[in-house]
């Protein structure tokens, strides 16, 4: 019995580039869950988000273009998260001052405090304190590993906005971890 293993793109993709939905879930499940957890900061919310992401993956797999699967999944996860945020407005965006650099006392004492023994949980907590749009941008950059242009395309914002959010996000994290 011939069984269709996976949805196939037509065109230039060589066979085998598009995995089945089950393969995506099994191979990249931990990655998607990690991104979801860094975005939500909560295991229950992360599980809900992963469910939504896998549904979107299931629907979108046929249009997947071979490339970085994790970059693709990271974009889907982040957009699903932001869609949910906009729908629920559970954490309204916080208005930030124009120049958050000024909020951070730049002194050797602060830098020393940002020691190497900071625990991952502390970083995660600090990440959760960021405004959602900042956290989404920082996660796409530092957890998923996208370039600024890729993040701009994923979030439909200018590259300058991405650069600003990443910098301001890191500055706020630096202050929170000091």
């Amino acid at each position, binding site marked *: 019995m011939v069984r269709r293993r996976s949805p196939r793109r037509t065109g230039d993709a060589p066979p085998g580039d598009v995995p089945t*939905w*089950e393969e995506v*879930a*099994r191979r990249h*499940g*931990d*990655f*998607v*869950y*990690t991104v979801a*957890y*860094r975005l939500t900061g909560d*295991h229950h919310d*992360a*599980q809900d988000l*992963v*469910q939504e992401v*896998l549904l979107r993956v*299931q629907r979108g797999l046929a249009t997947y273009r071979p490339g970085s699967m994790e970059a693709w999944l990271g974009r889907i996860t982040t957009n699903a998260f932001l869609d949910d945020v906009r729908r629920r407005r559970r954490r309204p965006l916080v208005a930030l001052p124009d*120049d958050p*650099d000024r909020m*951070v006392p*730049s*002194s*050797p004492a*602060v*830098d020393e405090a*940002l020691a*190497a023994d*900071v625990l*991952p949980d502390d*970083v*995660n907590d600090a*990440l959760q304190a960021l405004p959602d749009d900042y956290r989404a941008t*920082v996660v796409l*950059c*530092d*957890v998923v590993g996208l*370039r*600024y242009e890729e993040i701009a395309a994923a979030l439909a914002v200018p590259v300058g906005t991405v*650069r*600003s959010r*990443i*910098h*301001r996000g*890191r*500055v706020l*994290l*630096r202050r929170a*971890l000091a």
Partner: protein
Amino acid sequence: MREHPGDLLSARLDGELAPDAEAAVDEHVAACAACRRDLDALARTRTLLRGLPQVEAPPDLLRRQVDVRHRSSRRGATVALVAAGVAVALGMVVADPPADGGGPVTQSLTSDAPQGGTPGSPRSPDTVGTFSAPATASPATTAGDGGQAGEGGPSLADRLDEAAARLLDLLGG
């Protein structure tokens, strides 16, 4: 660059600056102790972020999702089977005449046929009449009777007779 680089510092760390902008930032940082400290602190923050460990997904989460998908694909087939079973059962009830010991399943499967029967179906004219009465009322099967139907149409007895005649024609070849 005379002004502090601001968000260009993070972009510098990420290698996201054009060569001339990168050179300008580097020139400023070399001459500005405050920006050097900022750059160093930002680099450590970035390292902390990028060093966050991967979180293992609850094993049942992905298994649940896969199971749900399999169930949903199986559900379609199950629904189709149940629907077919119900159709057969309904056909048996509707089509099962006391005198007809012949296959009710065959009758039910042919009950959708506009002519009320299929060549070769062994059944009595009465049974066929049960099926063809509603069928002959459809436009597709009463095209020639359209005018009459508008004026009251043939009686049920006439339609039964007509259906029986058709079946006899079919059976008789």
